[in-house]
């Protein structure tokens, strides 16, 4: 009998062009390279300088999301893109893609969106693939049982030129999620709780595999939220074994295999889950049934408490003291009731249809509180169309929220959507770092449900009070 393997080990072994040796890392073949306007220009420059070509146009896809505006008139005409350097970056991507033969889903393309949302939508993200992108949230694609991780721009150049990367084999960590999530408690709350438990560097050097009943019960949209934030625990990647839910999602997506090819791929995907007796280098266990909606109070995603809880008293700890000074919050304060000025629903973490439905369920028939600005930004143009077809956009607009074109938007302050200095933002995005949403912005990370409830009450609020019995 062969040695039992984890899913990660199977995918890794299937992609070794040359194995790791004492002196050199492994050469790993990349099945899908996603690229965007912010982390690619210098990589194309490298190719130009070295006289190199794009090796595999068929495995490369570009889109624009990070510095891309979300205001309709800036996307579809009528007003110039407000940030000149961003406009230049977008034009540069268009030029680079044309010159090197990269397929580009450009600014006005109906299939454009956040790179981690369109890969799965198109059916390009598939179990067993190696997927990279110059973005740390590439871990999102691991929800399909792919090995997906973020790379820097030099490595973007390596993949463009050779379709390969030099990699040292990471270790494996099983995240066993026991029990079920309670009503009103979401995958976002679960991953925030996991990061709170593991710590923001606790996953360093590991690939996570999320397992257990609560994970199995999730839709693909929800699994992506969990894998998306693996990097916030410092992990290289996060993976979830493919199953019927995975296949049902991918079937009939535009670029999934068809007919006999589909059957062959499904048969292959079934071989991917970790063998029963496979051993992991580390195990983390978490009880899903005891979790509540979670909200961050500090300046990293591990500084998190239940929405019914209080900010812990860690005065004297330098990180804690600096975070409290930045956030303008105090040790021992109840997080519920903390002030809210801005609410953002969107991003590669929570910008999919299931997230918009969840926020709309809270907002339906209600208004957001006076003085609160709420921005709802679909993760892709496809999500936007579907949300409009379902009437979700009307719910948001009727509640007083702004409804935009897709993009990274307020997750990071580089596209014109920012939170002002000193203002409190309840955000469904992934990072509450100082200045992430704008200079001096104060970010509290939460689920779409908690964000919507907080918008209605104008303070950090438990969404469960708005759930229909």
């Amino acid at each position: 009998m062969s040695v039992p393997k984890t899913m990660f080990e199977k995918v890794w072994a299937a992609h070794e062009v040359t194995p790791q040796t004492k002196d050199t890392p492994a050469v790993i073949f990349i099945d899908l390279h996603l690229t965007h306007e912010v982390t690619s220009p210098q990589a194309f420059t490298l190719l130009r300088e070295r006289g190199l070509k794009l090796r595999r146009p068929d495995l490369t896809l570009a889109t624009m999301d990070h510095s891309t505006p979300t205001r309709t008139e800036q996307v579809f005409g009528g007003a110039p893109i407000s940030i000149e350097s961003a406009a230049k970056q977008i034009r540069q991507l268009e030029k680079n893609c044309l010159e090197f033969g990269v397929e580009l889903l450009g600014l006005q393309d109906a299939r454009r969106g956040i790179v981690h949302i369109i890969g799965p939508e198109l059916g390009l993200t598939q179990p067993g693939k190696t997927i990279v992108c110059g973005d740390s949230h590439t871990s999102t694609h691991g929800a399909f049982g792919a090995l997906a991780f973020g790379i820097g721009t030099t490595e973007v150049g390596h993949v463009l030129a050779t379709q390969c990367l030099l990699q040292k084999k990471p270790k494996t960590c099983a995240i066993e999620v026991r029990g079920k999530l309670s009503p009103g408690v979401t995958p976002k709350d679960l991953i925030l709780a996991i990061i709170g438990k593991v710590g923001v560097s606790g996953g360093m050097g590991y690939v996570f595999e999320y397992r257990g009943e609560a994970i199995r019960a999730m839709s693909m949209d929800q699994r992506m939220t969990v894998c998306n934030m693996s990097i916030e625990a410092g992990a290289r990647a996060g993976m979830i074994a493919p199953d019927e839910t995975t296949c049902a999602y991918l079937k009939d997506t535009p670029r999934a295999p068809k007919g006999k090819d589909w059957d062959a791929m499904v048969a292959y995907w079934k071989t991917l889950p970790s063998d029963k007796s496979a051993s992991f280098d580390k195990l983390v266990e978490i009880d899903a049934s005891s979790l509540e909606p979670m909200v961050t109070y500090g300046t990293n995603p591990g500084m998190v408490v239940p929405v019914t809880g209080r900010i812990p008293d860690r005065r004297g700890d330098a990180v804690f003291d600096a975070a409290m000074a930045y956030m303008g919050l105090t040790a021992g304060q109840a997080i519920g009731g903390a002030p809210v000025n801005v609410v953002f629903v969107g991003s590669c973490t929570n910008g999919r249809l299931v997230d918009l439905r969840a926020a709309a369920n809270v907002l339906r028939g209600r208004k957001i509180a006076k003085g609160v600005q709420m921005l709802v930004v679909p993760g892709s143009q496809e999500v936007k169309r579907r949300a409009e077809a379902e009437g979700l956009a009307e719910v948001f607009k009727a509640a007083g929220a702004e409804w935009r074109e897709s993009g990274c938007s307020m997750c990071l302050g580089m596209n014109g959507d920012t939170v002002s200095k000193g203002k409190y933002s309840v955000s469904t995005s992934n990072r509450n770092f100082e200045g992430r949403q704008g200079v001096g912005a104060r970010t509290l990370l939460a689920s779409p449900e908690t964000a919507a409830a907080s918008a209605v009450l104008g303070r950090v609020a438990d969404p469960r009070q708005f759930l229909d019995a």
Partner: protein
Amino acid sequence: MKPINNIRSRTVVMPSTNIDTDQIVPARFLTTTSKLGLGKALFADWRYDADGKPRPDFILNKSEADGCRILVAGRNVGCGSSREHAPWALVDYGFQAVVSTEIADIFKNNSLKNGLLPVVIDEATHAWLIAHPGAEIEVDLASSSLKIADRPPVAFPIDAFARYCLMSGVDELGFLLSKDSEIRAYESRDGL
């Protein structure tokens, strides 16, 4: 890239834990299409006030930081985004090494590709360095050790291949390109 053998310099100490890449270079500076010139954006929100004036209490604005090539940072430096703009900004500013007890994965990889040495050391040595800002130290790549006067050298881990590339001044792309026949064999084997 220029070959690197050793770096000898006084240190700049930034003891904060979890210095993320959004602090090293805030996102609004990422709408550039070049690697150059990011040194002025380095730690922009800590270094300058709202009017763009240097904050006198920030370490890089103090005269003792002038000419320092080695940054000693708190645990888990470089966490967050994969932006290579972070090492580009550090290198453009003049840093050649970052020393900490933990250095985030992607940042470490990106640093190695830009001649910025990620040096992971034990807590006791780190505590000593934090307590002695401006100390003259040496990062010796040949022996993979950190040298502090009157103290025994401290070994730091570095990937053998990355060290070879740094010391020879070659980049990893050349190595990958030399694997062309193996890559072709892989592509035809898998019908890719």
